[in-house]
């Protein structure tokens, strides 16, 4: 373990003997390829622009005033495992320090494994970095919450927007990675849900090899069909980035570049978002991305539950956090809470581009019997999660 419990932020001065402590854990992987320096420099849309720990730190800082007033000492304990095998021990270290709520930023397979191994151990894991639908479905766990959006939620947000613009005919390009396939499948489900027509689905490959020109050449890939938009499922990001403005027909690129569904966009100017962006920028020296917001809101949710539950018993805090009564302020204008059926945070999703936001989903007019936020992603009746 390279950096175990190195950083322990005790933000509050000593309080009277009555003071309660709230230790929030943060667990990630040292060699996570998503944080490769050259990758981060490219600032791909819809991808993290740095470790989301930065978001958790801002949340702890901004929660300290309220916590202090109510005699609650907030601490953020971090642990980083060298590899997936070290995650169990790293989590044990956090538990030994009293963390009962642990933010986890891990690739989906590692998270699924960790969650399965820690059920019933009195810890609640909050997923801030993995969008895989399976984590909310077959692999769901009663002690696993998600502030990161699922692929289905992101796809539904985009689907709603395309329908609202009447851009119904979509050419789909899908990459070679398993995550690309998952993303494509989520979009295909949304397309069906909202009546979009996928005129063709074509595989692409990041390649300049003339022998596989039909896979790598955006001109060839976007020829021969009529469409309103080009949807690209590219979890890596490079191909999608470079496809913009190179399509045969002058049509927008959506999905993994161009118009991208994400849970935060620093260009959003309403609901107090500019204040949060300012705080984050000052603290992290970069713009806030969706992953940062996921970590930020995870801490905000745990603190909100801890402040509203007067007796402070861990189980009671968890019940309140997961119950429908909580109002988590995500600076997106809506009241956020966790879905009872799969532990997913219900939240608006932005349809963003470079420095702005075209719309916030649920898009006006998409209705739901109880909460319009539940038009995004797996609703209760669609959910395959069984706790």
């Amino acid at each position, binding site marked *: 373990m390279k950096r175990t419990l190195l950083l322990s932020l005790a933000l509050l001065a000593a309080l009277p003997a009555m003071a309660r402590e709230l230790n929030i854990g943060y667990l990630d992987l040292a060699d996570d390829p998503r944080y490769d320096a050259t990758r981060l420099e490219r600032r791909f849309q819809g991808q993290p622009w740095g470790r989301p720990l930065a978001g958790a730190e801002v949340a702890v800082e*901004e*929660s300290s*005033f*309220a916590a202090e*007033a*109510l005699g609650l000492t907030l601490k953020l304990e971090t642990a980083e495992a060298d590899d997936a095998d070290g995650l169990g021990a790293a989590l044990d270290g956090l538990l030994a320090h009293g963390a009962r709520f642990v933010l986890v930023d891990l690739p989906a397979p590692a998270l699924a494994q960790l969650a399965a191994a820690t059920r019933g151990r009195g810890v609640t894991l909050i997923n801030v970095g993995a969008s895989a639908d399976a984590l909310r479905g077959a692999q769901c766990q009663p002690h696993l919450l998600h502030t990161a959006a699922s692929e289905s939620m992101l796809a539904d947000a985009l689907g709603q927007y395309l329908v609202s613009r009447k851009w119904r005919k979509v050419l789909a390009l899908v990459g070679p990675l398993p995550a690309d396939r998952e993303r494509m499948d989520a979009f295909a489900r949304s397309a069906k849900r909202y009546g979009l027509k996928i005129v063709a689905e074509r595989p692409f490959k990041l390649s300049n090899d003339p022998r596989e020109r039909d896979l790598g050449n955006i001109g060839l890939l976007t020829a021969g069909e009529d469409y309103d938009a080009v949807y690209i499922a590219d979890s890596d990001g490079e191909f999608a980035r470079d496809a913009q403005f190179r399509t045969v027909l002058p049509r927008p690129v959506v999905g993994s570049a161009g118009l991208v569904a994400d849970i935060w966009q620093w260009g959003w100017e309403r609901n*107090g978002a500019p*204040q949060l962006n*300012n705080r984050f920028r000052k603290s992290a020296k970069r713009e806030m991305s969706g992953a940062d917001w996921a970590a930020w809101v995870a801490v905000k949710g745990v603190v*909100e539950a801890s*402040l509203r539950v007067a007796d402070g018993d861990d189980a009671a805090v968890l019940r309140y956090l997961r119950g429908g009564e909580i*109002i988590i*302020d995500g600076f997106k*204008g*809506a*009241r956020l809470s966790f879905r009872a059926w799969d532990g997913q945070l219900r939240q608006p999703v932005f349809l963003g581009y470079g420095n702005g936001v075209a719309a916030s989903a649920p898009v006006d007019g998409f209705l739901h019997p109880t*909460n*319009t*936020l539940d038009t995004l992603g797996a609703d209760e009746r669609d959910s395959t999660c069984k706790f």
Partner: protein
Amino acid sequence: MSFRRLTLATALAGVLAAPLVQAKDTGYIFVSSEKDNAVTVLDGKSYDVVKVIKTGKRARDMHFDAGHTRLYVVASDSGRVDVIDVAKLEVVDRIPVGEDPEMFALSADAGTLYVSSEEDSALTVVDAASKKIVRQIKVGGEPEGVLLTPDGKTAYVTSEVANMVSVVDVASGQSQAKIVVGNRPRRFALTPDGKELWVSNELGGSVSIVDTATHKVVATVKFEPKGFRADDVTPVGLTMSRDGKTVWVALGRANHVAAVDVAARKVSDYVLVGKRAWSVALDRSEARLFVANGLSDDVSVIDTATHKALRAIKTGRVPHTVAIDD
């Protein structure tokens, strides 16, 4: 000559003829506009534009001094309060108040400003004469509403991030209490006897009623305008009638204002207004309620007797606050 010109000419003539005579009861309606860096002045009867007064950047909260000779306007992105001479309809002074001010209260003698400073998470106390910041009192993240009690001894400040109201003793600059209210608390109204503090909770979709003696929330008023869900109800502005019987609450995205019976703590009526109804103001006779609609760039005028919307007045972009000189 149109009525508008006539009004302007009359106003100008008044200024030229007797520059020392103070304007009184001009009937003018002042509307600050967040995106135009300006305050629009409307005629109180015709609602025609009399003048657009350029201010600092992002004009927001406004208050008159006791004699209505001057109107103080926060220019949030310029870090100052501009002072408009009500007779001249010109900015005649500028008071720096620190970074990112949002709302403020003015002492009875207009000598002191109590400003919520988002950037510093503080209530900033500014001496108007010397233009110096006297002190800053920490009140939690993103402070917004500021209410000074009529005796000038206590200031209440909301923190949108902490979900709390700070009770500040003005003389000592100490925070005496912090009261947990609903989510994203914004603004205040105080009953005439000073016993109940009403706090709007934008995200909570409610108004918390605080007992000012015990600092406890004694009741919560919820809103259910027809055709809107709980999530659409985002109350921000509120104002109390002088007799303390009615509170008017703007319900934000629910596009309504609610009339609340103070004694019963129950909504008595809802009136449909413009998009994202935000700030509210009553005229002196309390016959008309003005509602700034942030997303439809207009101000709704409500007849408080019939609860009917009389008309919508086009204003600058993103109207923030309405102040009436009558």
